[in-house]
């Protein structure tokens, strides 16, 4: 499954019209150890680019943005209990939430791997 990226250092994978969202490996490393996460409510409707939660690390608190519009259909309860999963497995078990997309084409317009790599200077 192709992974897409945002300038806010989030990744998105799409299965049907459900998008799974997490933070990138680069962000997980740069932010430092995650100590607390605030994730959106299941069932809430969100717009693309809206701040839907926060990620608190030993260094700072940052907003989490929703890369696509739609309804939050699932949040990862496991990372709420064990925020270190975001540092340990940002691309797998450290995923954050799933969105039932109202405009699936938005996902196609996100950055691809090459664009993101050049964004972070990699």
């Amino acid at each position, binding site marked *: 499954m192709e992974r897409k990226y945002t300038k806010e250092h989030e990744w998105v994978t799409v299965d049907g019209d459900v998008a799974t969202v997490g933070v990138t490996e680069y962000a997980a490393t740069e932010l*430092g*150890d*995650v*100590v*607390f996460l605030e994730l959106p409510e299941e069932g809430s409707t969100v717009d693309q680019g809206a701040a839907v939660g926060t990620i*608190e690390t*030993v*260094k*700072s*608190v940052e907003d989490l943005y929703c890369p696509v519009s739609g309804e939050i259909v699932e949040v990862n309860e496991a990372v709420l209990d064990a*925020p*270190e999963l975001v540092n340990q497995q940002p691309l797998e078990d450290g995923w954050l939430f799933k969105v039932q997309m109202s405009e699936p084409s938005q996902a196609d317009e996100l950055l691809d791997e090459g664009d993101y790599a050049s964004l972070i200077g990699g």
Partner: protein
Amino acid sequence: MSANVEPRRWGASLEPNLFELGRDGRRATVMPAWDGDPVDVTLPAAYLRTDPCDLPSLSEPEVMRHYTRLSNLNHHIERGMYPLGSCTMKYNPRLNEVVAAMPGFADLHPEQDEEDIQGLLCALNLLQDALCRITGFDACSLVPAAGAQGEFLGMHVIRALHLANGEPHRVEVLIPDSAHGTNPASVVLTGMKPLTIASGVDGRLDPEVVRAAVGPNTAGIMITNPNTLGLFETDIVEVARIVHEAGGRLYMDGANMNAILGKAHPAKMGFDVVHLNLHKTMSTPHGGGGPGAGPICVTAELAPFLPGPTIVEADGVFHLDDHEGECRPAIHAYQGNVGVCLRALAYILRLGGDGLERVAERAVLNANYLLRRVVDEGLLQVDHPDGCLHEFIATGRDWKEAYGVRTLDVAKRLLDYGVHAPTIYFPLIVEEAMMIEPTETESRETLDEFVEILRAVRAEAAADPEILHRAPVHTPVGRMDEARAARQPDLSWLGPCNCG
């Protein structure tokens, strides 16, 4: 007792707590037995203790040694340099302590009658006047117990003004992206809404960005001046005009006031409120969560919204005015942390206006001396290297690229050399930030030594980055698990029987 002893290196082991050190029945002071008439205890039975209170049992020398050992485990300003940017860790003169401990101040009770506390009220009034002169404002409240509470009160006062003017819709507060994290938090606590605005490429606020962001819902703007990059906001007068024309008010975060004492008045820059961290600028101790003080000074327009009671003087007699019938905020009992205020007053009176001005000059000189040396000698990269005020922000970008060490590693290694680390990873807009503020109380020799320590650490990073990754190794404890400390703070001692 078994003789399980070994030579003890200071700080080699962590200190047991007072309960673990104590022995049942031991006392620091033994009170004489009561030989008078029995005392009639009229407290309701529900409030009477049935079991003895669980207090540590130690002798006075045991207590003294315990706290002395603890202070030896710690780094503090009496021990070494503390260039923690934004915190202004200047030396706390002993004279301040002498003044605060005078029985005429220290032995008072806040509920005493006004005529009994005229001396204290006179001193607090003097401090209010001094802070108003330093900032150029009309009224002062000494009540806030910390800088963040001063911020909260300052924004509350602005909110109260808009409400009194029938403009409850004014809730938007502009905050530059270089601001202290407490700024947006204070705004949210007052029920308003923070809006982040980008600082310009030169690290300063661009008036055009402010112009584009203000509107009919603007409540105000919060600006730190000099800002957290250690730069003076040169367009502040223009920014103030724009915000005032939009109906907003200007809050100045006074965290960096040390750089401009006696040189620039926040009021003349166009601000309406400023808070001052007495534990930064006015040399009172930074408590480890203990008492601080963050007084605010305001324009006459905002004075009616300050907390009561306020100190008023009539014919040389001081009176506490409750402002009955007015709606004033209550954020702290009585007049705030009075002992801290007295220390600040002692500092201000001792130095006088000329002395405070020299404080600012020396603070700026020290920071620029360090900036020049670390940049010119290739020890640290600084994005705005041409000059600074009281502090400068280096980036550890080149250390990361060249040696694979991060600012955190550099900071930890500095501890091994006996200096406190600078503030790191703030401001957020600077990659691998290291915020260095030497303050005016460090000598040239101390600054030179800091440069040599940086040179030594850089050489270590080049030769063997692992030295920095493993650091600190000469401190009582090594790398702490900061994530676990934040996630699962263990703050209560439950006694030896619960430790298992």
